[in-house]
């Protein structure tokens, strides 16, 4: 628990106004929710009322404010719902309730549960994370969720487990992008056990004080902020512990361009573009990319002995 301790990855405090606006807006939303107006926000009511972090304002070292909610919820890559480059995935009929989640593979006790039941039992917290897409855009989002390891430990992984494989849903009827059979659906991502165990690895169920929207990966997505965004798999239905390294979606599709590790590094360009800079959603600004997306203090040690791996692809 983080009571009384402010982990260093938490974005430092600041008195700037945009966030003050954001927080007052959130209180207003919580009110609407408790008045029963917003069906979407309702399940989040208890959670929105409990930002474990008090209503601080927060800002990045490089004076990067939170990305405005309208941009973080409208500029998304979610190819299951949007095959083109419109970046406005239409996930209208996508049903995220009820949502079953399975944990299996090399575990002592495989689990299968309804997400809402589980969320009633786990304390949620809010984290302000940077998010860096491999295509060169970036945002800063107040995610709500819980550490990935909480969920994984529930199933008690065996000693032989080396990787965590995460799998997204499969339903071509509501997700027309999945009819494009040349892509290896469903979306699959994976982490090493050490990565999954890291305190930064976060499972997300909400953002901006509300239940997560479909285009952001509802009802359950990953956030691994030191890696390129495509590692942060959306709409997770299954977590499996494995001994062999899983082949991820993009690794299978375009191995020349995308690998297993995908850690952010300004000095390792993508074959088709430089990674030296990032464009901030909602601004005309570009900013230098930071190695590990600025989270090196918390994650670099994971990779100390892995220097032969292509860590940044």
């Amino acid at each position: 628990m983080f009571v009384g301790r402010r982990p260093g990855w938490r974005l430092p405090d600041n008195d700037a106004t945009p966030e003050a606006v954001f927080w007052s807006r959130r209180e207003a939303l919580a009110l609407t929710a408790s008045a029963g107006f917003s069906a979407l926000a309702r399940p989040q009511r208890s959670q929105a009322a409990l930002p474990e972090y008090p209503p601080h304002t927060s800002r990045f070292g490089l004076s990067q404010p939170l990305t405005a909610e309208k941009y973080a919820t409208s500029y998304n890559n979610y190819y299951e719902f949007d095959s083109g480059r419109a970046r406005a995935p239409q996930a209208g009929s996508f049903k995220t309730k009820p949502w079953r989640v399975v944990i299996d593979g090399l575990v002592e006790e495989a689990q299968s549960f309804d997400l809402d039941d589980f969320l009633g039992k786990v304390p949620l917290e809010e984290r302000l994370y940077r998010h860096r897409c491999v295509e060169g855009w970036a945002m800063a989002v107040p995610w709500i969720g819980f550490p990935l390891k909480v969920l994984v430990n529930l199933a008690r992984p065996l000693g032989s487990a080396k990787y965590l494989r995460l799998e997204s849903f499969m339903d071509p009827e509501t997700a027309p992008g999945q009819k494009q059979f040349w892509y290896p659906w469903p979306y699959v991502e994976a982490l090493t056990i050490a990565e999954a165990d890291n305190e930064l690895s976060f499972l997300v169920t909400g953002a901006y004080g509300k239940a997560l929207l479909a285009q952001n990966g509802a009802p359950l997505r990953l956030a691994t902020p030191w890696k390129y965004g495509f590692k942060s798999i959306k709409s997770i239905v299954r977590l499996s512990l494995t001994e062999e390294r899983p082949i991820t979606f993009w690794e299978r599709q375009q191995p020349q361009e995308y690998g297993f590790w995908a850690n952010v590094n300004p000095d390792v360009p993508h074959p088709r573009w430089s990674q030296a800079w990032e464009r901030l959603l909602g601004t005309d600004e570009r900013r230098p990319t930071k190695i590990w997306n600025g989270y090196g203090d918390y994650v670099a040690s994971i990779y100390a002995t892995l220097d032969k791996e292509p860590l940044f692809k």
Partner: protein
Amino acid sequence: MITPWQDRSGRFYPFKAVVFAGLLLPGVWTAIAFGLGGLGALRLNAAIHLLGIWALRFLFLSLLITPAKEILHWARLVQVRRMVGVAAFAYALAHLLFYVAEQSFDVATVADEIFFRGFLTVGLAALLGLALLAATSTDKMMKKLGGRRWRRLHRLVYAIAVVATLHYLQQLMLGEREPIVMLGLLYWLLLYRLLGVTLAQGPLGLFSVVLMSIAAAVLTALTEASLISVASGVAFGRVLVLNFSLELGIRPAWIVALPGIILACAGIAPRYQALTGMKTPSASAVRPLSRRP
């Protein structure tokens, strides 16, 4: 100096004015949307995309003018060909400027990126070609070069169209429709030109235009299926048969077939009129370049 809305005698010329306004429209729309926040979270990037796609569309439109003139017996079209071509260049230049702006006017990065990223190098080649043609598009340059040399130089536009389409295709995401449609339309334009100078030795007949449109569509379907199949390893035939279902929407090949067939159908009218002697096409279609009251 003749403005884009005047004829050679300096009088207001509605046909040219309308075309000119049409050419300005996407740019004006982009500028307004940019200013009013209608271009989303990364408006500079959105503007790059819009200006790039319109540059390519106008480039293709300039190549369509001669075929459309021949099919529709509408000689007046030629009077706006240079204007459309210059518009393509203007949009491409604005496209580059917005890219420079997106890189925070850091010209060193821009130069670096253009040098190292294949698709940007290719884009630059297309832009330089367009610049050359735009610079030689004035009456003065036309006279200076002489008709034959000028025409030979401006045949370069076909190569530029190929290079610009390549720049677009290098950014292709599998399953995306518009880049493949543009490739198919490029096939159509090249085929028309090729058949015109070889088989037909002159304007193609309407029936040939229809056949050729179907050929361009078939080529498009084959190319799309090969691209997807090679990139993903799925069977070529599986992608090809998609063209006969609506599972993933209307496929590019059908869209490519359409304009040529529509043009050919529209071409029936002037030929019918010519046959029945209602009016002679050339007299009605060509407006004298310098008109006296």
